[in-house]
């Protein structure tokens, strides 16, 4: 497992303001591995997901491998003003436009319901809440205790030193459930979350700067070899028309209750 972006190394490389929100991002909620891992469309991923919750509990009880956190942090410079980027991200319903593993996010004020594309087309769902925010500067969110999928995230927007655009840093933390399952997951997904976050952020940049995400999926091609054809078939389908959506909706339906109130994995915060 790749732990080089652990909390401590993160703190060394971050400026003071980011450090101040780092504790939120890095606090480990516990529970199952993030949707990033679960959403990989592979047979192995499907099998792991199928036994996910059970395995996580069992693994934690047996204690065959200590539960650990996966922390990923990536920074891109985006040639748009901080406030504009903040506004887009602040509406979590926009996230599926550039986070490919997400199918949808529905917001209800501070709360939100997230649906990810799980393995073999099985959706994975959880609830989250906005923990902290500072307009034009940062956002911090976490999954609600008992969601089954435990994760925390933060995004910070800083004006770039060359006066052109914004340095955007995303930090995400997932709980690896530990146990044999955890070991297998770490092996399978050890590098995956890093790439996923990096590519999500790259797509966010393209969407904000160019107004679209570059793609070649769906273009003509000659006959492919069997191996290449299989590789292409394995690629995730991609929305072909990605355009910016309007500002965040601020309505909070009365009596909104998180849907998931199941087993908790130490959701203290």
């Amino acid at each position, binding site marked *: 497992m790749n732990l080089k972006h652990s909390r401590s190394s993160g703190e060394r490389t971050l400026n003071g303001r980011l450090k101040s929100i780092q504790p939120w991002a890095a606090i480990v909620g516990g529970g199952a591995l993030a949707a990033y891992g679960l959403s990989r469309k592979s047979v192995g991923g499907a099998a792991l997901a199928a036994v996910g919750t059970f395995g996580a509990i069992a693994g934690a009880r047996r204690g065959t491998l200590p539960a650990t956190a996966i922390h990923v942090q990536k920074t891109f410079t985006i040639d748009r003003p901080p406030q504009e980027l903040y506004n887009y991200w602040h509406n979590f319903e926009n996230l599926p436009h550039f986070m490919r593993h997400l199918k949808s996010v529905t917001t209800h004020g501070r709360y939100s319901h997230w649906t990810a594309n799980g393995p073999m087309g099985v959706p994975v769902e959880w609830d989250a809440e906005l923990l902290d925010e500072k307009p034009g500067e940062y956002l911090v969110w976490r999954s609600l205790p008992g969601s089954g999928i435990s994760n925390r995230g933060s995004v910070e927007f800083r004006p770039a030193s060359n006066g052109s655009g914004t340095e955007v840093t995303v930090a995400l933390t997932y709980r690896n459930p530990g146990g044999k399952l955890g070991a297998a997951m770490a092996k399978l997904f050890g590098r995956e979350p890093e790439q996923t976050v990096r590519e999500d952020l790259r797509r966010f940049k*393209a969407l904000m*700067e*160019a*107004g679209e995400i570059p793609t*070649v999926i769906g*273009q*003509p*091609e*000659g*006959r492919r070899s069997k191996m290449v054809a299989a590789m292409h078939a394995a690629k995730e389908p991609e929305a072909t028309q990605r355009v910016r959506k309007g500002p965040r909706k601020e309505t909070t339906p009365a009596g909104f209750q998180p849907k998931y109130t199941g087993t908790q994995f130490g959701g203290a915060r």
Partner: protein
Amino acid sequence: MKALCWYGKHDVRVETVPDPVILNSHDCIVKITRTAICGSDLHLYDGYIPTMEQGDILGHEFMGEIVEVGPEVKQRKVGDRVVVPFTIACGNCFYCKQQLWSLCDNSNPNAAIAEALYGYSGSALFGYSHIYGGYAGGQAQYVRVPFADVGPLKIESDLPDDKVLFLSDIFPTGYMAAENCDIKDGDVVCVWGCGPVGQFAIRSAKMLGAGKVIAIDRIPERLKLAQEGGAEIVNYEHAPDLIETLKELTGGRGPDACIDAVGMESHGHGIDWYSDRAKQMLGVSFDRPFALRQCIQSCRKGGVVSIPGVYGGFLDNFPFGAAFGKGLTFRMGQTHMMRYMKKLLDHVERGEIDPSVIITHRLPLQNAPDGYSTFLKKQDNCIKVVLDPWGEGGNA
């Protein structure tokens, strides 16, 4: 539609493939009226560019008529006659805003692959391997062009296709190579390679005020064309010590600037060349930098080495000590197309240059595989092959 697809080393075929469709909101679809085979396509044909896949549609020099536009396209219209630059740029990122169009941040869907190899990714290119985005190319009847308002240059005049087609790549590429030389009036510029880019570099260096342009090649008809473009010529096969020859031709100083319009598949003679070629054939090296070494060795102190020729990987026996010792400046990279296209179109429209003089072969797309083979072997005095996607094919 018909399209030329890559299947491996020296294996390209014209296939029937689906027509392209609009995939993003700033796309347009161009019905191609003329397209060409570029010298850099030969690197693909020879199998030296990594990340090609069987079935990839080649071609990055093309023009035609816009037949469909995406919902966000504001300036280009259906019916516009356009020349399309080979680089794909978004027009809105830091690099595009600095006119560094070939370094666009947002056009390469496979930027992660390029980052792994190069640290950061340049812009995507049409029909030039997956590391450069995997976009289907324009040796076809139709092509999808992203960012229709940024790249395609509208041709308002009724100049024939053959006179404006090369604004898609080689004319601006030759021009940027010369501009990169920081030519002062009377400078001596030496150009390695008298293929199409070399020819435009020679003519551009003259336009920019070079006092003398020396052109180096080994193919008589290319040297003749260079001479017609205003260059003094040197056939390196008859110049056993090229560096010494150039010294004599430049009053003992060496050229003020050297242009490597050859790139990774340099030909030459002597032990260096055989060693480079052996390494490339064994797959231990992508590049064969023979011409580049000569550029560095012969350039005067404090001079400029300008490199429009394509390189992909690592260079062996690179004389960096000579470059350092003489305080050379290196300028290189894919062409920042949109910086030059309009300006060079004006030159063509004013009749100051006729780019079509380099065309030696006109073929229907159906016969493109023959065109590749003829161009590679430089048979039949071949300098530039232009393809008509709608022409009737012969018995290829």
